[in-house]
């Protein structure tokens, strides 16, 4: 019997396995690996589970990718845009105001200046996410992008969120760069993450498929259904039972708690406090080449049901059949903001026409909805304490939380790989 069991064969689980020196087994409930980074192929179209593009500045991750995927990746300039006030501007919003109505640009600059005059160049001590936005970006940028967009993506009032997850994700604006972006149109994406890598073929899943030959004891179609802390064992859907010395869980934390055999009441209570956002991805295949030259477009305005569109064919032409295009619309929902699945595709198409992405007479050859029950952990004020409480308890029982959904964090692919590696390194020292 392997001493270490890993639940979940997404980026994190695979990375942990790849880096472990002791013997291990990986248990994956789906019929393929990839987790949140799977790619679905339907009628010649490929769709990722949400817009995934890979950036890394970490040397270890970089060389790992080079080793696994030599010549199978393409490096592309990022084409991330925002559609608001009837016009496209580049992402990030604050650094690319040129082209918006002068009144809006003015409000954004004045707001930033006022924020800087009031709170200084490096404000700190934010009471919540909204407070952060107002102090760092000022009222104009807050009003015209940050608040409406984040409300749409997170579904939770921004006052209920903390700022723990940011910093690495949202670049702090300087007045100079905001002015630069207000006075002229940038010819390309600037700053960090200006380029990204993406598999030439097979969608985002191809990255993680490349690890599989290096992984031992990989069990697909094997969903963990019950974990006994007392016996240090778990059952899978086939009814078989396995023992572990150490268990690495990459499952969504709330789901893990549900399959624990009679956990303490406080643990259940802590788990109940966790909030998250789910995602519908409405994938649409169109009988027309080149719907868009962009890779993704953010929609902060309420008038559009989606907050983000992805055009995967601009990440790799292999994502669509020749002469066709696809668009993937992301629509956030949660307990606090449910979305009716009924007519969702029709409503999305309607808004795509309104946004002039589709023409009313476009021939739609495919509609397909993916549901991501867990998309983003919501960083509300209770999250940190609840997660650390649960995690502490589990580690005492030799269960280790790892990855975006287990650690209930806003991790990207690079961070998943690093989280898997760092846990593996830690456990390696014990064997």
């Amino acid at each position: 019997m392997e001493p270490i069991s890993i639940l979940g064969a997404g980026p994190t689980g695979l990375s942990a396995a790849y880096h472990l020196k002791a013997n291990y087994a990986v248990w994956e409930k789906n019929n393929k690996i990839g987790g949140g980074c799977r790619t679905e192929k339907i009628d010649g179209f490929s769709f990722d589970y949400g817009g995934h593009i890979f950036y890394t500045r970490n040397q270890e991750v970089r060389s790992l990718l080079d080793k696994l995927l030599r010549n199978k990746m393409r490096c592309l300039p990022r084409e991330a845009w925002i559609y608001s006030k009837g016009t496209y501007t580049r992402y990030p919003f604050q650094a690319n105001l040129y082209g918006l109505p002068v009144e809006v640009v003015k409000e954004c600059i004045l707001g930033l200046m006022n924020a800087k005059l009031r709170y200084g160049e490096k404000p700190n001590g934010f009471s919540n996410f909204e407070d952060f936005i107002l102090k760092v970006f000022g009222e104009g940028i807050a009003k015209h992008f940050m608040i409406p967009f984040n409300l749409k993506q997170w579904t939770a009032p921004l006052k209920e969120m903390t700022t723990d997850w940011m910093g690495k994700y949202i670049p702090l604006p300087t007045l100079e760069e905001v002015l630069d972006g207000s006075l002229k149109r940038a010819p390309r994406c600037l700053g960090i993450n200006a380029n990204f890598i993406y598999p030439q073929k097979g969608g985002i899943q191809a990255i993680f498929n490349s690890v599989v030959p290096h992984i031992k004891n990989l069990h697909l179609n094997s969903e963990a259904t019950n974990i006994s802390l007392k016996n240090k064992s778990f059952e899978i859907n086939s009814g078989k039972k396995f023992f572990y010395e150490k268990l690495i869980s990459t499952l969504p934390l709330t789901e893990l708690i549900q399959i624990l055999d009679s956990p303490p009441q406080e643990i259940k209570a802590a788990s109940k406090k966790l909030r998250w956002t789910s995602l519908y991805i409405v994938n649409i295949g169109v009988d027309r080449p080149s719907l868009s030259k962009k890779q993704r477009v953010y929609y902060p305005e309420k008038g559009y049901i989606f907050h983000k569109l992805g055009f995967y064919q601009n990440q790799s032409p292999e994502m669509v059949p020749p002469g066709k295009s696809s668009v993937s619309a992301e629509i956030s929902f949660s307990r606090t903001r449910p979305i009716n699945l009924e007519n969702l595709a029709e409503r999305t198409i309607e808004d795509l026409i309104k946004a002039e992405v589709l023409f009313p007479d476009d021939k739609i050859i495919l509609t397909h909805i993916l549901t991501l029950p867990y998309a983003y952990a919501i960083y509300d004020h209770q999250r940190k304490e609840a997660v650390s409480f649960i995690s502490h308890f589990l580690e005492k029982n030799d269960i280790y939380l790892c990855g975006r959904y287990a650690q209930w964090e806003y991790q990207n692919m690079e961070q998943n790989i690093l989280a898997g590696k760092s846990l593996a390194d830690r456990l390696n020292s014990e064997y």
Partner: protein
Amino acid sequence: MSKVAILGAGLAGLSAAYHLKEDYEIFEKEKKVGGLCRSIHIDDFIFDYGPHILFPKGKYVAKLIKKLLNNNLHIQSREAWIYHKLSDVYTRFPFQSHLYGLPISIVKDCILGFFKTLKKKDKEPQNYEEWIIWNFGEGIAKHLMIPYANKIWTISPKKMNFEWVWNRVPRLSMEELLEGALHDNPRLFGFNTEFWYPLNGGIEGLPFSFLTKVKNIKLEKEAVKVYLNKKCVEFSDGKKVFYEKLISTLPLPEITKCIENVPEEVRRASQELKHNSVYCVNLGINREKISPYHYVYFYEPDFLFHRISFPMNLSSYTTPKGSSSVTTEISYSKSKKIGKENIIERVVEDLIKAKILFPDDRIVVSDAADIQCAYVIYDLDHRKNVEKIHNFLRKHHIYPCGRFGEWEYFNMDHSIASGKKIAEEINNTRKK
């Protein structure tokens, strides 16, 4: 003997006469009235001594000018622009509210510099240069205001005060600055956005309009001596006139020079007064509409002139059909000497450089007028020196009046108001 003698028949002297209830006589050294508001007629062209446009602010003076000019009054929206040779663009005047069109790096400099002025400042400005930076920031100061100030004032703005600024250099909010930086904002900004000008006859139409209402004007009478004790003015023709009160619109240094036995400190104060001079080069060109503007500023040292104006656009009656006219102003002084030789040729060369004239344009008339006393310069001792001289003159019943008598940066309406103020002062003393 008239009770009041007025020296100078420019706007201030004429206005003083117009408002006086006493007997008066006006003595003017030139052959016609108007002073600096005279016009120059060459063939069918009419030029002024630099662009004289009216933008009266005071209600009374505005009404008076309207009454005087009557149906000869023409009201227009100002088209004032700035030429930037470095980037070969025109932007609207004033600079600070119309940055759009300039190279991005300059616009950014100006905005970032202005932003810094919004932060807490520890030291109040002590001179005009500091005032510029205090109000507009280092970008605007560096890119336009300081070079322009150097050019027109001929001395460093560090050596000037800023009490004359009033709203001649319009201050603005960050919002207004951005408004003008983000797009071509045609909204006129500043205090002379709309101006008045006589339809016929050039600016001297205004002083001439006093002629039916003012009497006792003696032309070609240049005062050379003033005897304080005898209360007597002697003229270059040797004739003398006695007065009870003397209104002098002559430049302060000139009136002081006429007086014998001036106390040493008054004499010194008068020598310390600073002013600039302006060569006014006027050209008539045999091509229509060489420019759509009223005036254009040139702050770069590449050009001799700091401003050019187009009389043809102030009133089409100043220029024969099918031709254009341009007036250029070249500022000089003791601190910045500019030779007069070939001045017309040098101006034409610079106008070609500015793409106002083409090399093959034919200049049909040309003239270079030398305005000795053009602008009062507000150096740091201006106020102190002026007060000293004024106190002395007034003690001896001499009332300094007008742009050069009061030694202030007066526009035409201010000069008219100054004449009225002095006249009323004299009217009132008489009542008592």
